[in-house]
């Protein structure tokens, strides 16, 4: 008997009673989120555990100016990695744009599909226009998020239908407490997270 047959044979493969799994999804026990989801999201984002900053912009067209301001504040040149994604359509002519991600990329721009108010998380998926590696390599992670795309809870982040290679939630920056419990930002990935909240056009 092979390993699969032996394990499944020993366990038995009878299905649970109909509805039993769904009953464990009903009324999930979770922290309540204030009525104003945007305010709740921004509050979670600013908690020390996340330590992110944010700025509000009116539309995607305002993104280049907001990014330039952020980079200037951090003493960085106007150079970014920008994914080849039509959602970023704006005038980026003032920037040196990296065509491919480099190991020491200082700043990376990304688009989050959703924000989760409960935890201050940003939700991403991989796709033809959405590489994953840049979001973990850059030192400064600059994320565009539509205000209308902020949901309440973790459960609301699920993507219906066929799944992409990766669906991921980013809650703050890369951190570690592995040496004497001291919290260090930027262990492997981003040390800074900046959200550009895009209002209604």
């Amino acid at each position, binding site marked *: 008997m092979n390993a699969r047959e032996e394990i499944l044979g020993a366990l038995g493969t009878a299905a649970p009673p109909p509805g039993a799994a769904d009953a464990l999804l009903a009324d999930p026990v979770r922290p309540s989120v204030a009525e104003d989801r945007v305010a709740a999201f921004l509050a979670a984002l600013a908690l020390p555990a996340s330590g992110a900053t944010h700025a509000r912009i009116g539309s995607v067209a305002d993104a280049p100016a907001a990014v330039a301001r952020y980079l200037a504040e951090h003493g960085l040149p106007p150079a970014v990695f920008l994914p080849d994604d039509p959602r970023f359509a704006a005038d980026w002519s003032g920037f040196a744009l990296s065509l491919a991600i480099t190991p020491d990329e200082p700043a990376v721009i990304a688009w989050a599909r959703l924000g989760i108010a409960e935890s201050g*998380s940003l939700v991403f998926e991989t796709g033809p226009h959405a590489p994953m590696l840049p979001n973990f390599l850059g030192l400064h992670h600059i994320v565009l998020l539509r205000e209308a795309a902020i949901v309440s809870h973790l459960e609301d982040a699920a993507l219906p239908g066929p*799944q992409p290679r990766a669906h991921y939630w980013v809650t703050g920056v890369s951190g570690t407490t592995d040496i004497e419990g001291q919290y260090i930002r930027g262990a*492997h990935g981003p040390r800074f997270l900046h959200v550009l909240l895009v209002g209604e056009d």
Partner: protein
Amino acid sequence: MSAAFSRRVDAALADPILKLAIDRTAGTAEAKRALAVDGFAHFEQARTRAAAIKDHVVAHLGHYLEHFEASATAAGAQVHYARTADEACAIVIGICKAAGARTVARSKSMLGEEIGLPHALAEAGIGRIETDLAEHIIQLADERPSHIVWPAMHKTREQVSALFKQHHTAPHTEETIPAMAESARRHLRQGMLGADVGISGANFLIADSGAVCTVTNEGNAELSLVPPRVHIVTAGIEKLVPSMGHAAQLLRLLARSATGATLTQYTTFYTGPKRAADPDGPEAMHIVLIDNGRVKMRDEGLAEMLRCIRCGACMNHCVVFRQIGGHAYGGTYPGPMGAVLTPALDGLAASRDLPNACTLNGKCQEVCPVKIPLPTLLRGWREKSWREGLEPATMRQGIGAWAWVAQRPRLYRAAVRAAIFAMRRFGRGWIRALPLARGWTAHRDLPAPDAESFMSRYARGER
């Protein structure tokens, strides 16, 4: 107590730095968890629900395995089954060799430690880059993890500094923890980007989508699993959940119980290899589902242990762990959860000391996010050890003699009178030394008994 366990405990207790190192990390985790629990209004109900989710899965494990396998296969992943640690390692090594792998990047996984994967890779001549900072530290030190969340908690900054200076090409020049972390960041980055295979564990396996969920705070899992050509997952079969909604409920408890955070920084669900048009990701994804004693645990009274989500809260709150640290336990998993798991994984005969190295104060069960009755399971091992005759002869004879006398009330009372008479020869108020009881009196005094026993006063009519 076995000589080997006794030696490890003595060494741990005699190490003043170890105690400090444990207290720094475990103490912080304990305080932060308490704050996180206070901030979650219905934490108790959430624990009850989490336990119910895990019990549901464990009761229908075969069904969910088949469901997961079908979903993951449909998404393009290849699913393998392994009965034992050796079988699992052989599968992983086989995949690495078929891919022509020279180096693998590994994202911390306690299951990998459990099955001895680091050793198997070394034997196969495959280079291994541990990408979690703590795993990197203990890889350099050639040691084993001492905690399931902070594997290097036993190392001080001075020890870490020395290791990095010895092994890093461009080590830190300033003796600060941020400078050391920066040195590791520089050193590990090239390795991760150049690895042929990325190996991870799984925090959850999602049956309805075939996704594998990993959580990290460093983002090292993602950096280890995106650039290589092949992604291999090694996961215990108990990691299943029916859907992402079930995982979400457990994720809330996992981070709060482990570090006191609302959520881990990076929570990723991987479903199959990269799609044709994706700009990055591995070309192949393999998932190895490993039993290694779990079916037996389910069927032989340890089903509740399969609820464990590996948060480490039980050890952070354990008075014994806080004194002796993780290495003294001698197994892959330390602390209360380790004392239950190790006899199941390594055999009770080799590890019967662990269930005894427990005060049964119940703190572990109180903080467990999935309500595992750890003290009850530990008592179960003690009973089994007795039934199987694994207790030493002096213990068996002593308890046998006591039981024989205790079943004969007249004799028992006479023995008590004799014991009181004898013990009072050795001290008034407190006994500082007593023959046959040096194990106790070497370290603390024993209160001397009253002149008369309760039973004799009761018999005299005193009420």
